[in-house]
């Protein structure tokens, strides 16, 4: 068994490990050395391992594997608790799963109303309902209703299905939401009514009504384990096959197959890029056309500068005509200067970015130090460790030089 460590001690250990690694990486500022290389490999390995773990845990497993291998079901009702309804009791002996099932006598209470059900069902395609009948009622029928209030339209909707009672014992009803239900009103949220899945939300009640034949037959119905399911999305298996095609590039005989996968990906990319260009660059081009006249003076000056810069920079990149004529050469030259000005700004911002990274590390090293001493002492402590590590780096560099000289 692993020893238990107090949380504050663990956090302190993490801090000091972080501080050691940060300062060790910074020894590159002296020279390339073994300590730096060791920690660099440590960081790269950590990042790759973490990335791989997240890719499996957050992407492949829930989005791909579970979609293929599970029904992605959600519980509507498990009937494990005693109902407070007329004509219904909890039966702990006859059940499908869990602690029990509900024993319903339609003769006593022909209409069963369940109001304590989850309101949000996600994006189900079908329902799985377990029912048990103790005798066959040939012309018997149970009407199953889902009542909901659509959050978008704020109007009620009802989904109705018929369940025949021509069976004895447990039977699983699989009810397709699109095929087996008669729909009154609009149950799905408008915005999500795209593609295969639709969200059912605002469910406020489920209803089960026995027809006169069932009531008169004196049949007893058991209810257990009701679920809404998305279903097995087996077609995701093709994604795996398609992904494998990329690796055929490693086998010269089958390398042509990789081009198939690549060409589809390129086609998708090209199509999406076209749409992306219109959506992204279109508004920017439109906003580049600015009025210089008929606007307040300040705006006019601003707009004039904007338009001048735009035209000059575009002229610089206009290679269809040789830049010999003064009308082309002068704005092109100005365009080049303006570009260099922009690169200067980018460089300045880069310097600022690098300083910010260092400031972030200083904040970690000095101000987030868990020791209860003054900031000055914390800084002194960090400087001492830094000095020791830089000395180690110096020794490492010297040793490598000596080794090189010897060989």
């Amino acid at each position: 068994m692993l020893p238990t460590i107090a949380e504050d001690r663990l956090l302190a250990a993490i801090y000091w490990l972080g501080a050691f690694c940060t300062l060790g990486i910074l020894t590159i500022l002296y020279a390339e050395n073994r300590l730096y290389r060791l920690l660099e490999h440590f960081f790269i390995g950590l990042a790759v391992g973490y990335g791989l773990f997240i890719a499996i845990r957050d992407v492949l497993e829930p989005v791909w594997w579970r979609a293929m291998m599970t029904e992605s079901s959600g519980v509507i009702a498990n009937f494990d608790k005693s109902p407070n309804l007329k004509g219904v009791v909890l039966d702990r002996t006859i059940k499908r799963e869990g602690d029990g099932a509900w024993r319903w006598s339609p003769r006593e209470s022909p209409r069963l109303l369940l109001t304590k059900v989850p309101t949000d069902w996600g994006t189900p395609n079908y329902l799985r309902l377990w029912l048990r009948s103790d005798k066959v009622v040939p012309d018997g029928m149970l009407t199953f209703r889902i009542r909901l209030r659509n959050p978008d339209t704020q109007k009620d909707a009802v989904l109705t299905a018929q369940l025949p009672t021509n069976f004895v014992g447990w039977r699983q009803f699989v009810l397709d939401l699109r095929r087996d239900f008669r729909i009154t009103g609009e149950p799905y949220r408008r915005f999500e009514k795209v593609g295969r899945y639709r969200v059912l939300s605002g469910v406020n009640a489920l209803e089960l009504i026995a027809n006169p034949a069932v009531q008169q037959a004196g049949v007893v119905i058991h209810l257990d384990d009701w679920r809404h399911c998305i279903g097995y999305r087996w077609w995701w298996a093709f994604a795996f096959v398609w992904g494998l095609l990329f690796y055929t590039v490693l086998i010269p005989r089958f390398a042509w197959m990789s081009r198939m996968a690549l060409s589809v990906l390129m086609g998708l990319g090209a199509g999406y890029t076209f749409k992306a260009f219109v959506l992204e660059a279109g508004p920017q081009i439109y906003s580049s056309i600015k009025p210089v006249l008929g606007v307040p003076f300040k705006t006019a000056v601003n707009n004039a500068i904007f338009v001048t810069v735009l035209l000059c920079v575009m002229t610089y990149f206009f290679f269809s005509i040789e830049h010999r004529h003064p009308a082309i050469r002068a704005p092109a030259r100005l365009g080049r200067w303006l570009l260099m000005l922009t690169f200067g700004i980018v460089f300045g911002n880069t310097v600022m970015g690098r300083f910010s990274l260092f400031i972030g590390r200083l904040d970690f090293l000095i101000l987030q130090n868990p020791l209860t001493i003054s900031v000055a002492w914390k800084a002194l402590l960090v400087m001492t460790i830094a000095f020791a590590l830089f000395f180690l780096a110096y020794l490492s560099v010297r040793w490598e030089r000596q080794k090189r000289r010897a060989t």
Partner: protein
Amino acid sequence: MEDFAHWLVRFQDIDRRYIYLAVAATLTLPIVLQLRMPQIPTPPTQAAFKAVENVPDEKVVLIAADFDTGTVGENGPQLRTVLEHLMRRKKKFVILSLIAPQGVTIAELYSRTIGEKYGYKYGRDYVNLGYLPGGAPTLERMGRSVWETFPTDTKRIPLSELPMMRQVRSAQDIGLVAIFTGSGVLPSYVQTFWAQFKVPLIEGCTGIIVPELFPYLEAKQLVGILPGLKGAAEYEALLQQNGLGMRGMVAQSVAHALVIILILLGNLGMWLSRRPSAQRL
């Protein structure tokens, strides 16, 4: 004067490690002395602040933590201050990342630590949807149905079981997208959330990509920007908060002054060394 000119010429051959040391010292001293300087918020930061203020109460904010530890020095303070703002105004938020698995972990850590102060509870006030690659198509799908795109959160809890997510189904339920990144992930959000779903965007970016963002700001595709650490400091000033942005800006400014002086001295030295009389130096 002659000595100074001589020194300037020789200064060009200075070992770069002395410069590193000087920069490290100028960055460290203001941090240790905990100096502060006033910040005047620029219009892009003010606009970002206003956009957060204007998020309707019934809608959530989408926090796109598309950064990793490499840019946490800039994106970290930005995200912290925006989260602080959201929590002060009791706004709910959803965290996700398209390109950086570490980003969502960092964002959740910040949410937890800041949230303790404001009584924020996971699942009720904020949710971490995690990392899902795929760029614009993923966002487009998410905009149409959040539940389809993210079956569970990072803790494997189905979204239907998270009280907050019952109200968050599509882009219609998102009032603002706040992107924090050091990469060019913005186009994906512009093409989807801005262009298709009409959700306003703000971005906290690293200093290096600030110039690239101004066309987006000009076209109103971005409502506001938090440019680098300065953006974080300005936002903190608007929030009257004393965070890492404010702490870092003195160090940033002093170090910038040092760099400018070094550039001037270096150029002066180079100019002096090229003069004919410099051959004698």
